[in-house]
């Protein structure tokens, strides 16, 4: 008997020691897109964060600070940035944890939980961006209106009548609507696609569990 035939016998014996994956685990493997979707959510949130930060740094020149000073917005700007960056960091961290969790599990019900949690995190994040945007914009507008410096070189309170104030408020609301509407559309486009895919996986897993 040559060496390889001896090995063949052992090879057969070793078969008993092979791992065995369940139907569920194998099924999940071919549907294992959830992990890459959450990875993308994580990456996009980082890209978005970097983009915004770069824009912030790029736009922050002497002129901007002078303008902020003129409208009494300096303190508000500092507080807003601290809060905004802090909360954004928290969300990026959550996205990372979601990604890690989905990556680590091969249990269908846990995976479903993770998918639902990821969807919730994304929705909360979008909600945070839109609501904080609206609140910050409104506060900034009130501070600007109170600064009495709306028209260069003149006291706003002396120049503005009711009509002017109404126009000012109208234009502000319109700008806010366009800004938030644009953001909302952008988010629906970027995260919407990913969330729908996640949900599809979720439904697949759910079906699997019923069977």
């Amino acid at each position, binding site marked *: 008997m*040559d*060496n*390889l035939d*001896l*090995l*063949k016998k*052992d*090879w057969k014996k*070793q*078969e008993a020691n*092979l*791992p*065995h*994956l*369940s*139907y569920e685990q*194998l*099924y999940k*493997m*071919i549907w*294992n897109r959830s992990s890459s979707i959450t990875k993308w959510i994580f990456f996009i949130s980082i890209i978005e964060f970097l983009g915004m930060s770069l824009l912030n740094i790029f736009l922050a020149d002497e002129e901007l600070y002078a303008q902020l000073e003129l409208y009494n917005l300096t303190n508000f700007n500092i507080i807003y940035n601290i809060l905004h960056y802090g909360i954004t960091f928290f969300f990026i961290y959550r996205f990372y944890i979601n990604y890690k969790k989905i990556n680590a599990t091969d249990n269908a019900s846990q995976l479903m939980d993770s998918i639902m949690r990821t969807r919730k995190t994304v929705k909360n994040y979008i909600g945070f961006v839109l609501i904080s945007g609206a609140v910050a914009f409104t506060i900034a507008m009130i501070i600007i209106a109170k600064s009495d410096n709306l028209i260069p070189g003149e006291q706003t309170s002396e120049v503005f009548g009711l009509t002017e104030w109404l126009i000012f408020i109208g234009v502000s609301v319109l700008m806010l609507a366009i800004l938030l509407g644009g953001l909302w559309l952008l988010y629906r486009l970027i995260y919407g696609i990913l969330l729908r895919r996640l949900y599809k996986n979720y439904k697949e897993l759910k079906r699997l569990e019923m069977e």
Partner: protein
Amino acid sequence: MNKELEHQFVKNLERHQNIAHKICRIYTHDQESHNDLFQEITIQLWKAYPKFRGDSKFSTWMYRVALNTAITLYRKKKRSIQTQDYDSVHFKIKAEPYDDQAEVHLKLMYDAIRELNDIDKALVFLYLEDKNYAEISETLGITEVNARVKMNRIKTKLKSIINP
């Protein structure tokens, strides 16, 4: 995506998963790369499944696709890591104490197979799976004569690795 097809595929895969595990055992040397390759094979099988018409047995088809994955796709990705893993495994095997002479010999053989190239590994694998030369040639897409010649060379090669 057709649900019935999906169900059929996973059922088949579950039944024949040993094939993929054994290929992983030949081509990888630690648990992590075993799982990696297994997942890669699963994905490639699933991608190729619509083309599987059922004129051959699922297992026959699976041998072909899975080995192709191990030889072509996996090689590109894991080349650099493989050499490292090999060293550590080599070391571990040497460090384990054996009292049984036959067992030592088997370990040496497995060790020697790891030094073969990916195509030769495929041949050895099919040989260990008790495939005849007709089946080996069909799975790997070479002629039967070629398979025999290669197999003889591999046997010689293995001998020279074990008794240099």
